């Protein structure tokens, strides 16, 4: 699970977190997290984002509030989380037990030329989440810590927030479907059944 840098490999981490995921719903932030969940296995319970930077965690909140009995995971990058950092306050106040947010932190904007993000310069997202009011958090850097991270995501004692420091290298592009209406409709059908398309 380690890259040659000694840091976690993002795709192996994603694979481990999504193993035996049950009916968990996954929102992936635009860019590499969206490619990662698709590489692990594209399916109706995935919503890989193509845009809306800064919105992934809040999409997770709306979904978690609408479906309180289902686990919801937001898997996103450090740049995307920083852009929507205020949403940590919004989510902490709502306290959805079924929502987890995991930031795959490579300390760079990976899609735009690997410019450094604020986390490269000491900004600590876990501390920010704690300050917002998240009671359950984890900071993960080693493979032996990943099982506890997976366990926390599946435990339903949220809201849960974690940062996993990962190797910065980009992986092979595995693109999800680009048709947003399809991505939305298939997740709604996975959640609501065929009647999703007949809602009045």
């Amino acid at each position, binding site marked *: 699970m380690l890259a040659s840098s000694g840091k976690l490999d993002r795709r192996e981490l994603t694979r481990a977190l999504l193993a035996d995921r049950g009916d968990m*719903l996954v929102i992936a932030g635009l860019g590499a997290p969206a490619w990662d969940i698709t590489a692990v296995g594209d399916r109706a319970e995935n919503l890989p984002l193509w845009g809306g930077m800064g*919105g992934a965690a809040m999409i997770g909140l709306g979904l978690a*509030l609408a479906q309180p009995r289902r686990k919801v995971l937001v898997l996103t990058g450090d740049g995307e989380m920083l852009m929507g950092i205020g949403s940590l306050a919004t989510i902490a106040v709502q306290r959805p037990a079924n929502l987890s947010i995991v930031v795959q932190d490579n300390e760079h904007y990976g899609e735009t030329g690997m410019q450094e993000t604020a986390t490269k310069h000491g900004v600590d997202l876990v501390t920010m989440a704690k300050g917002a009011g998240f009671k359950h958090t984890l900071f993960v850097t080693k493979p032996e810590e990943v099982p506890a991270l997976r366990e926390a995501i599946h435990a339903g004692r949220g809201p849960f927030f974690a940062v996993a420091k990962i190797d910065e290298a980009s992986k092979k592009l595995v693109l999800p479907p680009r048709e947003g209406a399809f991505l939305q409709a298939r997740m709604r059908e996975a959640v609501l059944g065929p009647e999703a398309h007949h809602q009045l």
Partner: protein
Amino acid sequence: MDQNAIDKAPDAAAAWPDQIYGLLKKHDIRQVALVPDAGHSRLIKRCLADNGMKVVTLTTEEEGVAMLLGTWLGGEKGILLMQSSGVGNVINMLSLSILHRTPMPMLVTMRGDFGEFNPAQVPMGEATQAVLEAMGTLVKRADTPADIEPTVDATIRLAFNTYRPTATLIGQRIIGAKTFGKD
């Protein structure tokens, strides 16, 4: 309402805030995302008192647009309440509604619109309708109290029946402009 507050709330006798609340119930709106505005203050109180509604106070309006996508993914209906200045904060996030064809009704109380006192409100107030429409939002204005109920009803219906962002702009003429005694 605090008499020293910079924004103006609807007159206590005005029926329209309660009419909007009634429409939210009629359309089974379960999630209400908002950045507070004095113009929406009574409506917000009604929503907070309703156990069937989840009221989410946002740090910035764009959070609400993202949230409405999640709301719809999970099979509920939501709405975003904000002031015209907040419309400037949601522009890029509205891409989600167009891309995914997500119903996103918005109720916007206008500032910088009719007899405004605060010069800072005017630039965004002037731009509100234009930027919403530039992002594909179907916008209708309500400039008299009697306009509000049918216009908000149409805005909610249009969002959920045709899968897109829609907005009612509630004119400042209805709410009035605060003047700090400088009439």
